[in-house]
C-alpha cells in the first residue's frame, strides 16, 4: 500500500450493524439508503396519486363540487410537485444508490455519510413541503409557480414559501447525491470496468448527475429570489419596480426542462438493462445508446424556452428553441430503434418486467411523438397550456418514467429482497395499467383540442367535454387499482415471494454475481470484467463477448 501515494483508500465507517428501527436511522450503507429512498418515494407516489384521484373526481362532470376551487389549485400544484420532485427524481436516485456500486463492483458510494445526508434532506424537504397543509395554505400556483401570481398581493398565504423552502432543502440533497454518484462512477469502478464497459444504466446515471448539477442551480436562484421577494420585500419580480416576469420563466424552465429529462434518462438506462436480458441478446448498438444519452443531455440544456412559445419572447427565439427541441427527437429515436433492434430475433421472455419494458417503449413514444408536434411553434400556440400538454406530460411521465420504473422494480426486486415478486399479480398490474393509462390520458389530447385549458377546477358543458372527462376519471380509477395491485405485490412478496437465488433472470451484469440481498461488503470476490457482460463471459467461456 505504501506505493499508493495518491491512490484513494476510502475510509468507510465501520459497520456495527445495529438492528431494528435504529438501523435505518443510523445507516450509511448504500443499499439501506437506496431502500429508504425507494420506500419513501413510494409513499410520496401514493400521496401524489391520491391527490390526482381527487383532481379526477372533481373533473368527473361539469360543475362538480368535490373540491373547492382553492383546494383544487393546491392539489394539482402539490400533485405535480410531489410527482416530479418527491417521487420520480428521488426514486431514480434511490435505484442508482442501490445499484450503481453493485453494477460497477464497488463496496459502497464514495461518500457514505454524505449519502445518508442526501436522503434525510429529501425526507425533511418533503415533510416541510407537506407541512404547508397544516400551516394554512399549500402551494397553489402550479408546479412551476409563476410570478407574480405567487407573490403578494395575489397570493398572501404561506404556500409558496413552503414550496421554495422545501424544494431548496431537497435540492441540496439532490446535488449532494449527484456529486456522490459522479465521483463513485468515475473513481470506484472495479478493475477492468472501463468507461466503455459500464452498464448502460450506470451511463445514464452518470450523465443524469451532471444534468442535475448544472440545471438545478438556476431553479435554486429563482426560488431564492422568490423567497426574498415574499419575505424581505425585494423587487425581483415586481413589475412596477421594473421587474420582469419572463426572467422567472427563463430561470424556472432552465431547470424545468432538463428536469423532465432527469426523470427519464435513468429510466432509459433501466430498460436498456432489462430488454437485453429478457430478449436473451446483447444490447444492440451500445455505443450509440450511450452517445445518444450524452447528446440528449446537451440538447436538454438548450431547449428550455419551448415552454414559453406563447410568452412573447419573439420569433427569433421561438425559431431557435423550436429547432433545438426537434433535434432531441433524433437521439431519442436512436434509443428507441436500438431497443427494438435488441428485441429483434431474440427469444423474448414475457415476464412482468419485460411486459413493462415493452409497454414502456410503446407508451413513451406516444408522449414522445407529441413532443416534436409541440415544438412546432404555431401548433404550440394552439395547444400550449391546454389538456393536450397534460396528455403529453403524462404519457412521458407515466407511460415513460413510471412504466420503466415498474419494469425495473420487477427486475431488481429479487436482488433487493431475495424474493421474486408474483408474476401473476404482475400481469394483472400490467394489463390494468395499460388499460387505465390509455383510457385516462389518451382522451386528454382531445380535451385540449376542444379548447379545455389546464388548471381549471371545472369546465362548461360544451359538446364532448363531459363524456371525455367522465371516461378519464374511470380510467384513473383503473390506474389506481393497478397501483394498489402493485403495492400489494411489493408488500406481500417480501414474505410470500419465491426465493430468488443470486441470479434469477440469468443476467449478465455484476450485481447478479453476489447474494440476494447482497452482504454489507457487496461482493465476496468480483468476477473478472473483460467485456460489457462479465457474467456472460463466465457462463459461456466458449463464446465470450468481444472485449
Amino acid at each position, binding site marked *: 500500500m505504501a506505493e499508493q501515494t495518491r491512490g484513494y483508500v476510502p475510509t468507510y465507517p465501520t459497520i456495527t450493524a445495529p438492528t431494528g428501527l435504529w438501523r435505518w436511522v443510523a445507516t450509511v450503507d448504500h443499499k439501506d439508503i437506496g431502500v429508504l429512498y425507494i420506500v419513501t418515494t413510494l409513499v410520496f407516489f401514493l400521496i401524489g396519486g391520491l391527490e390526482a384521484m381527487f383532481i379526477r373526481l372533481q373533473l368527473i362532470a361539469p360543475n362538480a363540487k368535490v373540491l373547492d376551487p382553492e383546494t383544487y389549485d393546491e392539489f394539482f400544484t402539490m400533485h405535480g410537485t410531489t410527482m416530479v420532485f418527491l417521487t420520480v427524481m428521488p426514486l431514480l436516485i434511490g435505484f442508482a444508490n442501490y445499484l450503481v456500486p453493485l453494477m460497477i463492483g464497488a463496496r459502497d458510494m464514495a461518500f457514505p455519510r454524505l449519502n445518508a445526508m442526501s436522503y434525510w434532506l429529501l425526507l425533511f424537504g418533503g415533510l416541510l413541503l407537506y407541512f404547508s397543509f397544516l400551516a394554512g395554505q399549500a402551494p397553489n400556483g402550479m408546479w412551476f409557480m*409563476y410570478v407574480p401570481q405567487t407573490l403578494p398581493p395575489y397570493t398572501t398565504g404561506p404556500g409558496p414559501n413552503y414550496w421554495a423552502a422545501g424544494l431548496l432543502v431537497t435540492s441540496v440533497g439532490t446535488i449532494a447525491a449527484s456529486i456522490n454518484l459522479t465521483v463513485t462512477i468515475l473513481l470506484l469502478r472495479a478493475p477492468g470496468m472501463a468507461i466503455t464497459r459500464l452498464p448502460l444504466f450506470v451511463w445514464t446515471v452518470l450523465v443524469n448527475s451532471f444534468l442535475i448539477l448544472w440545471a438545478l442551480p438556476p431553479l435554486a436562484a429563482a426560488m431564492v429570489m422568490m423567497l426574498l421577494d415574499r419575505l424581505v420585500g425585494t423587487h425581483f419580480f415586481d413589475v412596477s419596480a421594473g421587474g420582469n416576469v419572463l426572467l422567472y420563466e427563463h430561470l424556472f424552465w432552465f431547470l424545468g426542462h432538463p428536469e423532465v429529462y432527469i426523470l427519464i434518462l435513468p429510466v432509459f438506462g433501466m430498460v436498456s438493462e432489462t430488454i437485453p436480458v429478457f430478449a436473451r441478446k446483447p444490447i444492440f448498438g451500445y455505443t450509440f445508446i450511450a452517445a445518444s444519452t450524452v447528446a440528449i443531455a446537451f440538447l436538454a440544456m438548450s431547449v428550455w424556452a419551448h415552454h414559453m412559445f406563447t410568452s412573447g419572447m419573439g420569433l427569433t427565439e421561438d425559431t431557435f428553441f423550436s429547432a433545438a427541441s426537434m433535434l432531441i427527437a433524433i437521439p431519442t429515436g436512436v434509443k428507441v430503434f436500438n431497443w427494438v433492434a435488441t428485441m429483434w430475433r431474440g427469444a423474448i421472455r414475457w415476464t412482468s418486467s419485460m411486459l413493462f419494458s415493452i409497454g414502456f417503449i410503446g407508451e413513451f413514444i406516444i408522449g414522445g411523438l407529441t413532443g416534436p408536434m409541440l415544438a412546432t411553434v404555431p401548433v404550440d400556440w*394552439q395547444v400550449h397550456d391546454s389538456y393536450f400538454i397534460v396528455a403529453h406530460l403524462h404519457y412521458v411521465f407515466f407511460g415513460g418514467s413510471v412504466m420503466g420504473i415498474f419494469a425495473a422494480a420487477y427486475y431488481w426486486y429479487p436482488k433487493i429482497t431475495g424474493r421474486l415478486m408474483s408474476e401473476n399479480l404482475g400481469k394483472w398490474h400490467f394489463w390494468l395499467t395499460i388499460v387505465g393509462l390509455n383510457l385516462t390520458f389518451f382522451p386528454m389530447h382531445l380535451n385540449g383540442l376542444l*379548447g379545455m385549458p389546464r388548471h381549471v377546477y371545472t369546465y362548461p358543458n360544451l359538446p364532448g367535454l363531459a363524456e371525455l372527462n367522465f371516461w378519464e376519471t374511470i380510467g384513473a380509477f383503473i390506474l389506481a387499482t393497478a397501483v394498489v395491485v402493485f403495492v400489494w405485490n411489493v408488500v406481500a412478496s417480501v414474505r410470500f415471494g419465491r426465493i430468488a437465488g443470486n441470479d434469477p433472470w440469468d443476467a449478465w451484469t455484476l450485481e447478479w454475481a453476489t447474494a440476494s440481498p447482497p452482504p454489507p461488503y457487496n461482493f465476496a470476490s468480483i468476477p473478472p470484467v473483460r467485456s460489457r457482460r462479465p457474467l456472460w463471459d463466465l457462463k459461456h467461456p466458449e463464446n465470450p463477448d468481444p472485449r
Partner: protein
Amino acid sequence: MGSYDRLATPLRKTQTTSGPAAAPPQLCRFARSALRVAFCALRFARCALRFRPFPSARHLNSIGRLSGSILAVGLALGLLPALAAPRSPFSPASPQAASIADLFWFTLIAAGLIFLGVEGTILYSAFAHRERPGREASQFHGNTRVEIIWTALPALLLLVVFYLTVRTMHDISAPPGDPVEINVVGHQWWWEFSYPKEDVTTANELHVPVGEPILLHVTSADVIHSFWVPQLAGKQDANPGHVNDITFTVSAPGTYLGQCAEFCGIEHTWMAIRVVAEPPAQYAAWVKAQQQPASRPTSNLAILGETIFQSQTCGSCHAIAGTSANGVAGPSLTHVGSRATIGAGVLDNTPANMERWLLNPQDVKPGVLMPNSKLTPNDAKALAAYMESLR
C-alpha cells in the same frame, strides 16, 4: 437458470394456441374475446388470491386485444366531435387558424405513421420472437449502417417540419395593413377590450368585423393571463408590463368561444372569452351603439335600481358612461345588458341570473374580486332590472 424456468413454463405451454384463428368477422371476435376475458377474470382472481403463477398467455392476449379494440373505438368516437366542435382549433374560422390546423394535421399524420411503424415492429417482435422451445436468440451486437439510417431519416423529416414551422410562424404573425386595433387587458378574472380609435370600452365579449384584419395588443393589469380563441388564432400570454400582438381575420360571421389559458389564480376557470364576428355593417352599428352613454332606465323597477346603484359603492369599481360611476377595477357596465354572459362566462345573462350574481357574487364565482354587497332580495331585483336595461 432454474428459478426462471419454473416461472416461465406456464406461459410457454399455451403458446401455440395464440396463433391466428380463421379470422372471423371483427365483431364476432370482439364478442368472443369479451367472453373469454370475463371467464378468465374469474380464474385470475382465484390465482391472484392464492398467489400462484399467471394461468395462461391466451387470456393475456385476449385482454390485450379487447382493450385494443376498446381504445380504437373510443379513439374514433372521441375524434369526431373534436373536428367540428366550437372552440376547437380544428374548425378554424380565420386563415391564420386554418394554416395552423393544416400544419397540425401534417405533424399529426407524420407522427401517426411513425407511431404505427414503431408500435407494429415492437408488437410483431414481442409475439414472433417470443421464447419457445428450440428457439435460440441471435447474438448480434450492432450495425453502424442502420444506426446512420435511423439517425438520418428522422433528421430529414424534421427538417421538413422545421421549414413548415418557420414559414407558418412568419405567415401568421405578419402584421396586417390598416387593421382594426383593439387593446386587450387581462384582469383577475375578466377581460377588458378597448377600441382606441372608436373610443369604445367593453368586457368579456369582443366584437369584430368579418373580413377585416384585426390586431390585438394583449397585456395584463395584474398577473399573467393568456388570450386564446382556438378557432381564430393561437394564444398569446397577457404579461404585466409587456404587450404581445395577435393578428387574425375572421372569415365567417359567428360566435367564437375562448378562454384564459394561463393559470391566473382561483377563478382562472371562469375567464372566458366570446368573440362575436359580424358583417361590417352590423359591426359598425354595434360600435355606434357602444359609443352612446348608458340609456336612462324607463321601468320603475329599473329606476329604483339606479338609485340603489348610486347609494352603493358600485361606482367606485364600475363605470357607467353618462353617470358619475367611473371605477376601473371591474368591467364597464355601460352596456352590460347587451352582453351574453355575466362574470366572464360563469352565468348566462338573464334577469334571474343577474339577480343571483348581485345577491352574492362569491356564491356564483368563489373568490371573485367583487364583494358581496349584502343587498336585500328586493334591492337585488331592482338592481338587476337596472343592469339589464343598460343595453
